[in-house]
């Protein structure tokens, strides 16, 4: 039965580890089985609940991270930052979101309507799906796939389609240029990231996100063995999510707003949400791959994971608010001429060391 196979796969995804979340699934399964609910129904419900939890986290995290960036940049820029809405301006992002929600949904008359509306959804989908394999704590992971890191690379590639589609559908020269830039940029920087991650996978011997963290147990964090790889990852990943100094697709002073020029209201909010969630994801992946994931003394694993992730987020923000924007051909050169060769040499050295030592 095809349906049965699918369900097996879902169970495989859900229950394959002996960790707390799976325990919770099993417990739920037993409890509901007592009411003679069909298991298919039950699995779907659990899936739904997990999806809702992830979505909730994405939304709340984006709210917080935007507030954090505004306050952080204010500190760098001798300003105060938001301080009017709510205590310490904490509700500023909420107010902004509400404003975006109730704004008129404008579709300019000359846009390619279907693609124009789909594009923000695709961008957000890519981001949201990546969130599923982020290991927040020991077993606290929505789906610990055996190919976790490969899945992240694959799904984050979806964003290119969304950005390019948005740029094309806007029927605006600036948008198109932004879309083209983002496609070139993301493809160029995905390759160094991939090569760097290969080295980590070789060290860890697994592509499972949880497995990679466990391979670093006992404070043998991979950043110690792979410092160059860590730097390359930070730079390339920062470029991949289009943040300054690599924010060419939406370079304000050149392309007005790049691919989001024609977007407003909720559609703009989706791009924005995806952008800030991407920032979190990149940092979370950096923590998982290089900084020992949830490992740390005193605090529970989840807290450690968040602390480390926000430390990396802070570094990325610091970069953003300090550097001028890089030029488009320099950007390409930097990836193909410097990052990729260094990453390849790094991979080769790693392979030789693993083989002979």
């Amino acid at each position, binding site marked *: 039965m095809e349906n049965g196979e699918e369900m097996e796969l879902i169970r495989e995804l859900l229950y394959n580890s002996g960790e707390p979340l799976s325990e919770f699934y099993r417990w739920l399964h037993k409890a509901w089985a007592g009411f003679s609910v069909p298991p298919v129904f039950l699995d779907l419900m659990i899936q739904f609940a997990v999806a809702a939890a992830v979505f909730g986290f994405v939304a709340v995290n984006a709210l917080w991270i935007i507030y954090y960036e505004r306050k952080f940049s204010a500190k760098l820029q001798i300003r105060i930052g938001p301080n009017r809405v709510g205590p310490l301006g904490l509700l500023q992002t909420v107010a902004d979101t509400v404003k975006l929600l109730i704004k008129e949904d404008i579709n300019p008359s000359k846009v390619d309507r279907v693609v124009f509306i789909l594009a923000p959804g695709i961008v957000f989908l890519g981001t949201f799906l990546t969130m599923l394999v982020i290991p927040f704590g020991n077993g606290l992971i929505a789906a610990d796939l055996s190919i976790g890191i490969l899945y992240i690379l694959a799904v984050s590639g979806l964003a290119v389609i969304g950005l390019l589609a948005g740029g094309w559908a806007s029927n605006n020269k600036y948008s198109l240029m932004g879309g083209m830039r983002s496609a070139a940029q993301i493809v160029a920087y995905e390759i160094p990231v991939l090569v760097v991650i290969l080295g980590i996978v070789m060290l860890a011997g697994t592509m499972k996100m949880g497995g990679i963290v466990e391979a670093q147990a006992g404070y043998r964090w991979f950043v110690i063995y792979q410092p160059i790889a860590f730097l390359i990852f930070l730079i390339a990943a920062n470029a991949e999510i289009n943040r300054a100094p690599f*924010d060419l697709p939406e370079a*304000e002073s050149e392309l007005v707003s790049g691919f989001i020029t024609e977007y407003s209201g909720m559609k703009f909010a989706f791009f924005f949400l995806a952008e800030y969630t991407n920032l979190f994801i990149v940092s979370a992946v950096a923590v998982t791959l290089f900084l020992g994931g949830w490992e740390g003394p005193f605090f529970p694993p989840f807290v450690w994971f968040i602390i480390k992730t926000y430390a990396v987020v802070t570094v990325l923000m610091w970069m953003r*608010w*300090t*550097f001028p*924007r890089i*030029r488009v051909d320099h950007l390409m050169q930097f990836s193909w001429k410097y990052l990729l060769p260094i990453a390849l040499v790094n991979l080769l050295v790693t392979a030789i060391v693993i083989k002979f030592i």
Partner: protein
Amino acid sequence: MEQKTAFEIQELTSDEYVLSMGPQHPATHGVLRILLRMDGEVVVNLQPDPGYIHSSIEKICENRKYDQVMPYTDRMDYLSAVSYNLAYALAVEKLMGLEVPNRGRHIRVILAEMNRIMSHLLWFAAYGIDMGALTPIWYAFRERENLITLIEMQTGNRLTHHALRIGGVKNDLPTGFVEGLNKFLENFNDMVDEYEALFIDNVIFKARTKSIGVLKKENAISYGVTGPNLRASGCDIDLRKLAPYSGYENFSFEVCSEKNGDSWDRCKIRMNEMRQSASILRQAIDTLPEGEISAKAPKIIKPTPGGCYAKVEGPRGEVGAYVVSAGTDKPYRVKFRSPSFSNLSALNEMCAGVKIADLVAIMGSLDIVIPEIDR
């Protein structure tokens, strides 16, 4: 019939397209429209299309009395209002044969140099935004705010301050002004050093500005480029040294010049000019003479018929005012020479074959002010 722009008439090849940059664009520093003939990201050709905020100031001046013209001159270069004030005042004083007392001339120099620093600081801030660095603007504005506060003490206004009058200045320096200026100058040089290290000497910044937008000396001269942009091309012409006015001959300062004429040189010059202006300000405070601040100008100014041209070195280059009198109480004709207009005309020379990002970097390094072009 609708007027066609040059690019619409010219035929484009199949690879090219026309991009209309502005009048609403974040990098054009106001309402300037630039028609770009593009091949992908590369600018093949461009044509500035100014005139969107034309305010016909020169025409208005013909219907105002001589002293009523002065506030209008503020509005052309709102970043350094004193330079146009000064050019106009010098032209009218020359027509009338009026001699400004020493203290008045000194205060004019102080105000002009403060305006120069303010204008260069704002250029620094805006150039940061052009280059995608969003932080320099706040640092530059912090320094600029100190100066604006002092100017506000002196004139009552912050931006278009209408500080000068024909024959001198409106107000004497208020109490606390000299102390405030001294306090500002105390650590201003350190600040400039810091901003230069943070931004102008940044690796990315250098890669984006060095040997980009090169303006050769011959071209600069033939386009009538003046000010820091001309000095960056290896031509150390500064009207404060070449044709001293308002007592500039009494101050010692260096004319900053560079050789290559690229965007980076233009940036370097402005940073150095801020240091020089600070030095002039220090000297001016130390040697402030006592006495009248303004010559006794008649209530109704009626110069003898004739024309007079006066030029001053503004932050952007040669600011000139040509005033023609017909013997009445209103000028027959007032013509302003604005440096930004000539500087902008050289843009095409510098931008052939550059990327659109470079175009923004070059245009920012020219430091144009739109109301001055569209006066």
